[in-house]
């Protein structure tokens, strides 16, 4: 397992160094700095140098690095690194270089707790927060009682939730956030399209509530025999008649009872208090692309180039997209661009070598156009312009590219209190690229 754990800043300086096993020296940090941080061409998260493997994750402006000398389970190592990042976030709000520098004793304390001789231990923030605190040492009188409570929770069945939570108003929020990836060829054929989504939950519920949660998962619907009769509207008014989504793979928070899911694909869980990522999923079938982009580029002469880009929104006219940004690359020897657009603002940004076209509000079923003329300077090296793809950024509310929707969320508690439930949907792009 892990032999050491390091945190580096972007300059390659060691912020945190914790050696778990004696088989490596502290100086391996230098190897990582030289081979990975300072090297421009290494972009793989795993670097094996000699007998050592470095696993790294970049979070904010720091590198979290695990080092091992054996053939460790890479997924486990990365999970651990992400857990550390999550812990940092939940302790300090933002886990970056400054946070590390101002809390380094606490971080060492955490590192001692969550990993023993290289084997990961309990990494649950809720539990850890009980005994690794930012405050000073409490009085001894409380300690015995407190200790008993900590022991029960740390070893109990529901490590992620304290039993004595009380709220006056019981609320639960569900956010479905999808990021859609697209690569489209110049001719308009889709080369790659997939959606990776997550369901985030914020629970402000008293006691130990048991929740049940239903999606329009195709397998589940088929099982329930509802497929034919399901006429529910898919969020965003997509065109799916069947209204079912085929999920390629899902991943759940540890609170979800996987046994039930395996058996009948129902999602039962006791939510942790506050925010958590309940599930992650991925789908590649039947994707609703929120925007269609068409671009025509003409080289009028050696030092003149014409761009015509049109973009169309593909969701219902009731919905709208926010903060739509199109980044249209221009040749590197551009000396000036004249743009005309039907909506929003467009200008040439030299530092990115592209035209940035911003539309703050984009209603559904709309068409907008950009026409631009770039002036080019002559260069000594006759390099052909590689034509990098157009990329897009946006946020579409109440729309899911996969067509996924939450069918129900039920909450059961011993006291049977009433609860309020909210569901929101949002789609944003991962890499949304169109070649031309």
């Amino acid at each position, binding site marked *: 397992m892990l032999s050491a754990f390091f945190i580096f800043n972007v300059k390659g300086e060691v912020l945190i160094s914790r050696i778990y096993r004696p088989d490596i020296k502290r100086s391996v940090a230098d190897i990582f700095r030289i081979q990975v941080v300072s090297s421009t061409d290494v972009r793989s998260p795993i670097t094996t140098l000699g007998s050592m493997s470095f696993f790294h994750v970049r979070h904010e402006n720091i590198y979290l690095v695990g080092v091992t000398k054996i053939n460790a389970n890479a997924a486990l190592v990365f999970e651990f690194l992400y857990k550390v990042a999550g812990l940092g976030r939940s302790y300090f709000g933002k886990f970056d270089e400054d946070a590390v520098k101002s809390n380094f004793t606490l971080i060492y304390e955490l590192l001692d707790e969550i990993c023993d001789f290289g084997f990961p231990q309990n990494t649950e923030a809720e539990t850890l927060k009980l005994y690794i605190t930012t405050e000073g040492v409490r009085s001894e009188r409380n300690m015995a009682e407190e200790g008993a409570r900590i022991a029960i929770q740390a070893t109990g069945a529901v490590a992620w939730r304290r039993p004595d939570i009380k709220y006056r108003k019981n609320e639960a929020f569900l956010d479905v956030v999808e990021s859609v990836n697209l690569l489209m060829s110049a001719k308009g054929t889709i080369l790659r399209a997939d959606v990776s989504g997550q369901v985030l939950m914020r629970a402000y519920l008293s006691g130990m509530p048991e929740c049940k949660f239903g999606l329009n998962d195709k397998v589940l619907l088929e099982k329930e025999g509802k497929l034919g009769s399901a006429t529910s509207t898919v969020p965003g008014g997509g065109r799916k008649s069947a209204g079912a989504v085929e999920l390629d793979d899902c991943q759940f928070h540890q609170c979800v009872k996987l046994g039930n899911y395996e058996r009948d694909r129902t999602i039962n869980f006791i939510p942790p208090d506050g925010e958590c990522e309940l599930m992650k999923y991925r789908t590649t079938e039947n994707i609703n692309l929120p925007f269609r982009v068409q671009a025509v580029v003409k080289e009028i002469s050696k030092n003149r180039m014409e761009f015509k880009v049109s973009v169309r929104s593909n969701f219902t006219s009731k919905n709208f997209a926010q903060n739509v940004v199109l980044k249209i690359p221009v040749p590197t*020897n551009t000396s000036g661009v004249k743009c005309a657009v039907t909506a929003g603002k467009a200008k040439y940004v*030299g530092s990115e070598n592209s035209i940035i076209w911003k539309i703050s509000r984009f209603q559904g079923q709309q068409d907008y156009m950009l026409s631009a003329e770039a002036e080019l300077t002559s260069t000594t090296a006759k390099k052909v312009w590689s034509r990098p793809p157009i990329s897009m950024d946006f946020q579409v509310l109440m729309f899911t590219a996969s067509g996924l929707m939450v069918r129900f969320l039920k909450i059961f508690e011993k006291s049977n209190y009433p609860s309020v439930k909210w569901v929101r949907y949002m789609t944003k792009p991962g890499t949304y690229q169109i070649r031309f």
Partner: protein
Amino acid sequence: MSMRGLTVFIADLRNCRARELEEKRVNKELANIRSKFKDPQLSGRQKKKYVCKLLYMYILGWDVDFGHMEAVNLLSSPKYSEKQIGYLAVTLMISESNELVRLVVNSMRRDLEDHVEIHQCLALQAIANISAREMAEALSTDVMRLLTSGQTKSFVKKKAALCLLRLFRRHPDLIPMKEWSEKLLVGMEDFDLGVTLAITSLVLAVAQSHPEAIAGCVPRAISRMHKIVLEKSYPADYVYYKVPIPWLQVKFLRLLQYYPPPEDSTQRGRLMTIIQTIVKNSQDIPKNVQHNNAQNAILFEAINLAIHVDPQSDVVVQASALLGRFISSKETNIRYLGLETMAHLAGFAESVATVKKHQETIIASLKDKDISVRRRALDLLYSMCDTSNARVIVSELLQYLAVADYAIREEMVLKIAILTEKFATDFKWYVDVILQLVAIAGDNVSDEVWYRVVQIVTNNEDLQEYAARTVLTALKSPTCHETALKVGGYILGEYGHLIANSAGCSPSEQFMALHSKFGMCATPTRALLLSTYLKFLNVFPEIRDQVVAVFKQYRFVLDVELQQRACEYLAIATQSSDELLQVTCEEMPPFPQRESALLSRLHSKTQDTEDKRTWQIGGADANKENLTAAAAAARRQSRRRSALETPQPSSQQQQQQDELLNLSDDVPAQQPQQQHQHPLAHQLHEQQAQDSAQAAKIAYARLVREPNGVLHEDANIQIGLKTEYHGALGRVAVFFGNKSTATISELTTEMVAGDGVRVTLLQPIAASVPPATQLHQMYNVECLAPTELHATLKISFSAQDHQSAGSWGTQQQQQQQRTHSTLELRVPIVPTKFLTPAPLSRNDFVARWTQIGGPPREAQIVAAAGTGLTDLDALRGVVEGLGASVLRDFEDAVVAAAVWNSTAAAGKVGCLMRIEYNVAQRMFRLTLRSTSEQVTAVLADQLREIVETL
């Protein structure tokens, strides 16, 4: 005038924490500059600022593919600050192959001609930095003018000299140093020592490639040295740590080493006084490191010069005492230099004795902690070795070899092998040493070394028995290197029968000693061992079964070479009569005399990377010729040869040594029965082929000028030509003479001509030529066009093989073979053959000359004339011989007129030529004008070839 934009930009980039941020900032700035450069009215100051920014990005490693034109524009700005940035950009961003070079040449010329010195300096620096070919072509004369002009300031002169030096080093063909040498020599006398230093650097470079052109530098160097060292007249500015201008002194001293010592006794006396003074001044070691360095630099160069001038003088004796102190110095650098200079000293027989006094120290230096010092010690030991101390030195080297670095092992092995061979007083010692060498450093022993052992053993009968006995003992030891196995295999195969009757050396024991190692060695060694077994089969019939079993086993081995050998040997062994076996396994004849491959290998390793060495490592005889030879190139060549041929006069074992030295360097024969493939014969063949190729070239060059002569000659056949030309038509008779005692048969000939000429056979030739007779054939020649005007004669015939008969001693002479030869000879049917005289008066000539005009109808060529050309009259004779009429009323050059004839399209073309010849420099300039461009080009080329090969 500060550039705030630039400082802000640099600060921005420096503050970028990640590469991505820097890239963004750079892209932004590039876009900004591109849009600014669109404006044609951009002020010079703005341009300068943006070019600076571009430069900063460029030196950070970002791609900058525009802005070059703006940089070039800045060159012509009148302001110094803008011009300076322009030059900086040009030198950084424009490489010598860039097309923009042509654009900047003109601005540079303007700046060179400018009267502002700082502009001249900028241009000179840029020229030296870029040093593109076009610049050298266009600007070298301007640079030279700056260097020699009286008005030029001395700091410009310094730069001009260094710029010229750089151009000369990069493009030696473009800088006519020979013509400029006089002016350079004048420059050496400049009153400003800085200028002298710069010019002397240039002279030093010229002296290395054209020593004779600039020979006048010797008295100048002596007189200037005299002034500095003895008269002590130098400006105080040039005193460096109490030493007057050490750089210049070192350069002068080194320069003098490229020339033979002055003949004139007063000059020589002055030189010796200078050296004496330098040595005297250096007796005490100054405390200050810089002072010490400067003083030593001069001292070592002075000692080298002293050795060069007269190795027996008192100065050298004094110097060697100093060197003795140096080689035991605590400073590594001093030890290194001391050893190196001592190796130079040891290069002269007369002074070896003085070096020998320090033998102990030198051997101790072999164990120095610094490898470069160890190398120098090895060189020195190699140089100082002679018959009296060879044994001691070789045994020391062998001892050290066992622990030596891998980096110098191979060199050591070579040197030990050469020394042992050269100074062996006793052959047994030689064999012992070599075997020891193989045992200690088997992997580093190159093939040449063991080839050489085999040759020596083969050529010395007394040695054969001892060698066989020794190798057998070596082979019996459990660890035995593959090289030892190769030597053993060969020697036992040849001479194993000499020891077969002694105890422990019986045939089967010999066989077992070899065969026990057979499985562990590489394929070439196995092949050699198979040949050895065949030889055993011939002399030891008693082990026949064992040997045949091995052959049978190897008939099916995968390796083709081994399989073929096994099959062939088995076939020979199983023949009913032993006759063939006996013939094929005859004892090897002694090898013919040949230069040692070891020496040539050693020399091939020493390559010049810096200033040429003025001497060479390798003992007394290596440097002997050095003293008298004047030309540097010839000197190097002869030195190598002299190392081989000059015997040691002091040696008592002269007879033996001669034998040792005159051995061949070739691979010993492994398969005597394959005579036609024998490597030795093959080599001989090659060498002869080379010689005859040279002869053929000379014969061809003569026939181009003259109508009749011999085209080709070898042991069997002589081929001659008789030609007659009338205008565009000609007749060629080819004579075939048989020189051998046997008939030449299967003679076929074919004339292949280019498109420009039609050749028809008039009279064919018989297929065989009886001994000592001559037959001939006739061709008609017709000239059609100036291009593709050439012809080749292809001949094939079969004759008695002289080469193999000559080199194979008495046993093989009865087996003479007939070999089939083919020859491809260039026939001198060339454009100049079709010239007819056109007598013109002086006025007519001048009128027509101007009428034809310049290029492309004019061609001008400057080249070096052949060594056979003595004066203008000789050249006139040659030109007349070609068929042109020479105008006698031009005194200073050869001026001639002729008509070039052809029957087809081109018709008759008038041509006028003028050849100027500089007797002193052996250079000629040929100017040729004719009414046809094609004819001009072709004729000028041909004439150049003729004059060059005179």
